[in-house]
């Protein structure tokens, strides 16, 4: 049979039952719309969270003390983990690919200034932090490049701390106390907002050595290495390993690349998107049952026609494809309706709830349509096979 005749025969029979065909398509359309909408929201959230993470830059590698083995045991259990020190960070700075090396300690402390007090997160860090983490300074400057072991007592305020302590007055040059020690304010950070519940503005930055002292810690909680773009991450990891192993005598630290973090995060978020899509899939199942029902009715109503086509020289396979074709046309057109519906609702939601991240990748659209067609195929197979296997004489007797 020519493809044009095939299309003509299938579409004419669907057209002959307009209302029925339309309702069946709606069933699939609702399912596809749900899948598209829910996965779009899932994907939007996915993208949103990844963007939150990568705003600190992607060419970054974190080093933490202690070696996590696959058993989850740290070699620290055996009492031989050397803490990461300021000297370690200084040594890493000499690596050729290291653009910035930022040591970090973190803790909570009471800040006193302008006759007010506030308990907040204090970071001990170095002058490279704004560059490494894309965190610009709004007012004044960040911590200067000082003697790493004996830095001056300067502090930089997060925008919220500045607002809480100093209101709208200029804090630059003001004296504050952090955990009892006196510091001079030399800068205020640009507001960063919240990242996954962390308020990045409710923070104070002081020099690393002073942070260690303040929190009475032996070592850094983390060293972050920002490397030059284009350098393969394997080379970066190998370089860091070489330097630190030489200094510590063994590998008693863990290196985490941004890639690894994103991989883990990405796979968690993919599961989320798939789970949410599967919920939409349930309504697709309903649509599929609709197609099975309607195709079964179609075959039963047209039994005599099936017998006739056989008598006129139609083959099993032609009958099979005619009915499969009808099921696929139903689901494919239903799927297109569903895409329009799903994307449309997504856009509307985006207009009315701007905070809800919605993103519909093209591949989802194509996959949803392919899925609709496959559902039509699967739902049509049983009725179509039944039609193809009918005995022509019996079929012709049906009226």
């Amino acid at each position, binding site marked *: *049979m*020519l493809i*044009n*005749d095939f299309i003509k*025969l299938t579409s*004419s*029979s669907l*057209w*002959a039952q307009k209302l029925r065909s339309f309702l069946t398509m709606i069933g699939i359309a609702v399912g596809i719309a749900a899948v598209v909408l829910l996965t779009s929201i899932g994907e939007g959230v996915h993208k949103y969270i990844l963007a939150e993470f990568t705003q600190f830059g992607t060419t970054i590698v974190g080093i933490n003390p202690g070696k996590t083995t696959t058993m989850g045991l740290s070699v620290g259990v055996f009492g031989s983990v050397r803490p990461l020190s300021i000297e370690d960070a200084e040594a890493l700075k000499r690596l050729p690919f290291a653009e910035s090396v930022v040591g970090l300690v973190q803790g909570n402390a009471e800040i006193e200034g302008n006759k007010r007090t506030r308990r907040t997160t204090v970071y001990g860090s170095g002058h490279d932090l704004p560059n490494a983490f894309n965190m610009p300074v709004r007012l004044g400057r960040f911590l200067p490049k000082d003697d790493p072991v004996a830095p001056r007592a300067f502090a930089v305020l997060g925008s919220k701390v500045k607002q809480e302590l100093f209101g709208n007055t200029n804090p630059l040059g003001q004296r504050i106390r952090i955990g009892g020690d006196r510091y001079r304010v030399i800068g205020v950070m640009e507001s960063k907002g919240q990242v996954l519940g962390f308020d990045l503005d409710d923070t104070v930055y002081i020099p690393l050595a002073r942070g260690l002292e303040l929190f009475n810690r032996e070592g850094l909680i983390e060293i972050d290495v920002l490397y030059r773009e284009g350098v393969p991450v394997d080379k970066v990891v190998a370089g860091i390993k070489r330097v630190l192993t030489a200094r510590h005598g063994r590998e008693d630290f863990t290196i985490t690349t941004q890639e690894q973090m994103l991989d883990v995060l990405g796979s968690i978020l993919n599961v989320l998107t798939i789970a949410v899509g599967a919920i939409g899939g349930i309504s697709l199942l309903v649509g599929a049952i609709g197609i099975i029902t309607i195709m079964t009715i179609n075959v039963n109503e047209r039994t*005599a*026609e099936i*017998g*006739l*086509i*056989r*008598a*006129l*020289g*139609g*083959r*099993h396979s*032609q009958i099979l494809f005619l009915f499969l074709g009808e099921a696929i046309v139903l689901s494919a057109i239903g799927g297109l309706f569903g895409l329009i519906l799903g994307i449309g609702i997504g856009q509307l939601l985006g207009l009315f709830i701007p905070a809800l991240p919605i993103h519909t990748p093209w591949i989802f659209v194509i996959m949803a349509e392919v899925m609709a067609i496959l559902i039509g195929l699967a739902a049509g197979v049983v009725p179509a096979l039944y039609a193809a296997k009918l005995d*022509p*004489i019996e079929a*012709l007797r049906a*009226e």
Partner: protein
Amino acid sequence: MIKLQKIHRNFQVGDQIVHALDDINLEIAQGEYVSVMGPSGSGKSTLLNLIGMLDHPSSGEYYLNDKNVTELGEVEEAQIRNKNIGFVFQAFHLVPRLSAAENIELPLMLAGIEPSIRDAKVSLALESLNLTERARHKPEQLSGGQRQRVAIARATITEPAVLLADEPTGNLDQKSGHDVMDILEALNQRGITLIMVTHDQSLGDRSARSIKMIDGRIESDNLNKIDHATVS
């Protein structure tokens, strides 16, 4: 052209076996006009379906144009039905959503023939059966006689050698019935082999050869002396 040898066709109904065809031996030559008569349930339709390869014998051999076609594959059988055999049914069996022209076109569509070739054939068929004005009409807009004429056009559109008609006038009034008979007989005179089941004696008498069936057997097989059927 058609040769049936020791054909049996049994049906299992419950724990009984019905012998719908019981040792049928029959030869029909190209261009013959054969009527098949007999009481209801005597196996006439079963015989016709078997000749039309819609059905298969339980035992025996069927030769079509000297070729044993008893056990062909499904695709080959479909092809033979499409090219060599035309069916006309009592109930017309037109596809309701297709126009008269499209119904006539159906066997050509199934065979994958190009529309340009089809169109010429269909309009010729419509014209010869006086249906040109009805080409775009749906079956429900046609009278019974017109419907059966569409069905005859469809059965003959691939120019088959055999035309099988199972009570073709059974659903028609007398006038339309006669028209349909005239058309079938005219086709036979142009060379088609016409095998027609009927239980109307007056129609049976018009054929050159009458077969009478009883209980799945051929009771008699007579040549009638009829002038118009012997014209070559």
